[in-house]
């Protein structure tokens, strides 16, 4: 198996965008190709991550459309769908193809145009990945699953609404420093939790989770260029290697898990990624976790091995995961503030890590970060991917 490096990255600003999906994917792809200082003739293949253009935008065959728009013809092109983990799955496909020796240089673009439909429709669209007979028919949504999970976790480990709000506060604070973030506004504990007007500013979505416990619905795209590590020094930037990859699945219906609080797929994906990289959680300097809900950042930080089970909220309380802490989590603002265009998120996590490891994350740079970790969480933890990235 050959080593694989990331030699180009780019993204669009996330948020409510006027442009259509193809325009967003093109903007991110062109930014990544420009970053790699390459011409389009050298692209061997493209993978496009998208969860639901067929439902949201009346558009299917997204990779075929993008490869044409960018005149990368006749490069092979595939669309990859793995729910909100589509981005990491597309990168995985590129990684495997290069590692196998089949391709040398691959473009991966992930994007979603979610604000094209109403909030009711987008909620139903995301909910359609839940178990059909066991969950979806009841009106279950992703916030509903997260709410039930949060209630159990909070009761077992003494996690308070203030802990959840600390994730939001931290990630919004980081988002202010990220020009690509959907929401660039800091919030206060008083404003979202303690003042009387908090019930209006921060209403319940799925009790005990409130609006500021949930990521926004975003449009946006992100792209990376991957290449065989042996050729990586031909490109202009500090070489960042894909040191480790892991993926694991779990039961589709959350209630079928032996312990519904145990996110086994997060642990499995993280352990596999660390094993391949030959690194341990303590070797990581910066992490991007899938905080679609504040509770998830806390639990993923435990299952990835950074903190003990039931101790994630204590690390948060001590400021360990702040930008100036020992292990900054979600310096980008995470899904919470950067936003969550579902197909783009897994790619955007890798883009942020590459910027951090190159020392290019202006305004939110984690000093001297050499190893990064990210986790892209599909379904409610039923299909999870993790990467470890290392600076050469």
């Amino acid at each position, binding site marked *: 198996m050959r080593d694989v490096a990331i030699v180009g990255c780019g993204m669009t600003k996330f948020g409510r965008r006027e442009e259509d999906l193809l325009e967003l994917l093109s903007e991110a792809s062109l930014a990544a190709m420009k970053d790699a200082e390459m011409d389009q003739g050298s692209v061997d293949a493209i993978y496009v991550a998208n969860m639901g253009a067929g439902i949201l935008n009346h558009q299917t065959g997204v990779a075929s459309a993008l490869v044409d728009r960018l005149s990368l013809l006749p490069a092979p092109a595939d669309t990859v769908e793995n729910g909100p983990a589509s981005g990491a799955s597309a990168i995985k496909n590129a990684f495997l193809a290069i590692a196998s020796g089949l391709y040398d240089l691959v473009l991966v673009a992930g994007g979603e145009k979610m604000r094209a439909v109403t909030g009711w429709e987008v909620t139903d669209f995301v909910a359609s990945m839940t178990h059909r007979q*066991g969950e979806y028919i009841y*009106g279950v949504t992703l916030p509903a699953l997260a709410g039930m999970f949060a209630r159990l976790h909070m009761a077992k480990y003494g996690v308070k609404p203030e802990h959840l709000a600390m994730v939001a506060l931290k990630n919004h604070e980081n988002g202010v420093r990220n020009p690509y973030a959907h929401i660039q506004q800091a919030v206060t504990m008083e404003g979202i939790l303690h003042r009387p007007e908090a019930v209006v500013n921060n209403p319940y*979505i799925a009790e005990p989770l409130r609006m500021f416990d949930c990521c926004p619905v975003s449009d946006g795209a992100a792209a990376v260029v991957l290449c065989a590590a042996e050729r990586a020094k031909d490109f202009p930037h500090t070489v960042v290697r894909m040191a480790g990859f892991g993926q694991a699945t779990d039961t589709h219906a959350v209630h*079928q898990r032996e312990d519904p609080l145990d996110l086994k797929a997060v642990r499995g994906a993280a352990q596999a990624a660390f094993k391949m990289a030959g690194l341990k959680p303590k070797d990581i300097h910066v992490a991007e976790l899938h905080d679609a809900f504040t509770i998830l950042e806390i639990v993923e930080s435990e299952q990835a091995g950074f903190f003990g089970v039931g101790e994630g909220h204590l690390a948060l309380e001590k400021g360990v995961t702040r930008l100036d802490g020992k292990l900054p989590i979600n310096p980008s603002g995470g899904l919470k503030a950067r936003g969550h265009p579902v197909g783009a998120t897994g790619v955007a996590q890798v883009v942020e890590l590459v910027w951090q490891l190159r020392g290019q994350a202006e305004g939110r740079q984690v000093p001297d970060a050499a190893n990064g970790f990210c986790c892209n969480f599909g379904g409610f933890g039923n299909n999870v991917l993790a990467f470890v990235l290392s600076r050469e």
Partner: protein
Amino acid sequence: MKSVKGYQCKECGRVFYPERKICLGCGGRQFKKIALGKEGVLLTFTKLHALPMDFESRTLMLGIVEFAHGLRALGQLSTDDVEMGMKMRARWDVVRELDGVQLYGLRFYPAKR
């Protein structure tokens, strides 16, 4: 009224809901339907305020109930006056209308009222 059924693996006895084609425990492929039991315990719940399309109510109560054999099922709750650990009784009822079709599923009621 249709009763609620779990699927028990004929090889190892493990019970699942919803059904699986292959047993998660032993790989067995033969299952028999068994009754869920009359009462279960409310493991966790949420009051949902942001509903997907096609629901007319402003909020929706959802919960996971644990029955005998450790078997669990998710369903709608009849009331928001609930707490964790409460005993619930299951009924089979229309839970959603989708594309003009009425879908049946579980609705949980407090066992004693």
